[in-house]
């Protein structure tokens, strides 16, 4: 059967993705409705990490570029928003988007010269970007509060003096942002720039030879990821009421990358599920005391080893494979 010259691109909700959307956000809505207010604190922290993972997926999942500066972009959002709110307390409607635009510009400026680097070197270069951010925050305590952090006490405010706050509002805000981000990801994946990014990820040289402006398209993906992390950080800064470099240290970037690799870069929902499941599990380990760090590391390593092998298999197929009833598939 001859293939059409211009096959119609798959829709955002095609190939079962609509069910994934409905399932994930349905469960999230149920949690929001049923969980008591004090539980929403932990849920909101998981959602912050989910947003960072989704943001990194724009760079790594679509563009194939490793970024370990996601925590820095998140921190930039928190600090920019907190500092600007001190001078313009009622300006949330322009401050938050302006912070996102600034961070997107920084992300694109970082990506462009580093685009040619191989994944390991790009990871290290972005670790450098993150370290620069943390050290700049520490170096100017009169502006940022330095190592002791700063209060982010001014709440988000709408025109007319309506202040926004509380666990419930921030749960809605994080969930809404996650929904918009996930929709953008799915839409981008099925668009012309998305296919160009996927081509860059699969074979950068071939993509260039097909006329794709690799640095430009990858810078756009980087900028999108940085902006999403920045928005998440802005919200989190106002939610927590206090920000310090420790909240946005390298651990946040490392965790973001770890969860994305565990869930599978380029997949939309499995990294988010990995965040929720593993973070919930890890948060229950406080009783271990000094052994907590070791067990956390072991759990993450096990997830790294087992997760990718399990990906793409239904529970039934996994059971059949385990029982030896079908030949092992090529991972």
């Amino acid at each position, binding site marked *: 059967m001859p293939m059409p010259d211009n096959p119609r691109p798959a829709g955002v909700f095609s190939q079962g993705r609509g069910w994934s959307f409905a399932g994930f956000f349905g469960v999230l809505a149920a949690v929001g409705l049923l969980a008591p207010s004090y539980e929403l604190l932990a849920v909101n922290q998981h959602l912050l990490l989910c947003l960072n993972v989704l943001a990194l997926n724009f760079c*790594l999942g679509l563009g194939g570029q*490793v970024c370990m500066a996601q925590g820095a972009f998140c921190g930039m959002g928190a600090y920019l928003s907190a500092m600007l709110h001190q001078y313009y307390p009622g300006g949330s409607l322009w401050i938050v988007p302006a912070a996102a635009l600034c961070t997107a510009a920084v992300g694109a400026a970082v990506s462009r*010269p*580093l685009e*040619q*680097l*191989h*994944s*390991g*070197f*790009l*990871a*290290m*270069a972005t*670790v*450098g*970007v993150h*370290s*620069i951010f943390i*050290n*700049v925050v*520490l*170096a100017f305590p009169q502006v940022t509060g330095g190592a002791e952090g700063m209060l982010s006490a001014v709440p988000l405010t709408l025109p007319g003096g309506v202040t926004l706050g509380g666990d419930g509002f921030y749960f809605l805000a994080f969930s809404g942002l996650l929904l918009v981000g996930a929709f953008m990801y799915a839409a981008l994946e099925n668009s012309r720039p998305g296919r160009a990014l996927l081509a860059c990820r699969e074979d950068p040289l071939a993509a260039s030879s097909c006329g794709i402006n690799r640095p430009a398209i990858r810078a756009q993906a980087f900028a999108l990821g940085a902006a999403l992390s920045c928005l998440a950080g802005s919200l989190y800064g106002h939610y927590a009421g206090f920000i310090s470099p420790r909240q946005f240290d*390298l651990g946040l970037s*490392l965790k973001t*990358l*770890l969860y994305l*690799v565990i869930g599978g*870069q380029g997949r939309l929902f499995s990294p988010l599920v990995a965040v929720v499941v593993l973070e919930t599990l890890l948060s229950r380990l406080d009783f271990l005391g*000094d*052994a*907590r*760090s*070791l*067990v*956390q*590391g*072991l759990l*993450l*390593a096990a997830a*790294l*080893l087992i997760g*990718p092998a399990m990906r793409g298999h239904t529970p039934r197929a996994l059971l059949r494979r385990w029982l030896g009833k079908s030949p092992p598939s090529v991972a």
Partner: protein
Amino acid sequence: MFSLYLAQAVTSGLALGAVYGLMALGFCLIYNASRLINFAQGELLLLSGLGILSLVQALNLHWTLGILAACLWGFVLGLFLYATTLGLTMRAHPLRQLMLTVAASLIWQGLAILVWGKQPHVLPRMAPMPDLRLGPMYFSQDTVTAMVVSLAAGGLLHLFLRHTRTGTAVRAVSMHSLAATLQGVNPIRTYAICFALSGTLAALAAMCVGPQTMLRHDMGFAVGLKGFVAATVGGYSSLGRVFLGGIFLGVLEAGLVLAFNNELKEALTFLLLIALLVVMPLGEKHAHAR
């Protein structure tokens, strides 16, 4: 007065630079052979140092035996790191291999907290080196020890890679893994040897840095990162240049401390890393060489 400050900065920079040089050599060995950037390099140093500390406290060893035991302990740790990271994921996506070294660094840090606690530990000076004064330059016992140990280790590594059969195999795999395999070299064994040698170098680096700055459970990543910066400065191609990259970084950091505070010094160091990576895109070169 400024020249005196500068001379002092250079001598203290040499002590730290020697440690960075050893770490950079370890990075370089693993990267050149397997194209893997080892995020757990700093934790190799940490666990090596803490292991040596326990060994020295338990057995009260003579310093020569102490150094030999440290080398052996580092070698075993390196092999163990290989077996639990690259050895497990030989055919996996490079990003998964990379992230497994990140997970290994978390595990090793957790192990350090569990066994040795969160308080810093001072590693006793093992090699009986004297203080040295050359004109305005005063070299403390720690600086002399770090320089002698690192130069001896670098020299021995050079001899090993140049004049032994295994060393030749390591160089062959570093140049072209497939061609080396066709010539009968076992690349898997070579990777393991590179990890083990890297562990030995990290143990020696721990011996140098332990008495200077103490060993803390959270120091690994920072030292490892500096080792990576030093290896990048050195260009990953020759042992001498990589080691000199470490010395350069140590002296540069000590010099920057004279003009800036610690945070700006760190920021400028990482800015140097990014500038170097942009100017000399090593990853691209190696990706094509594969």
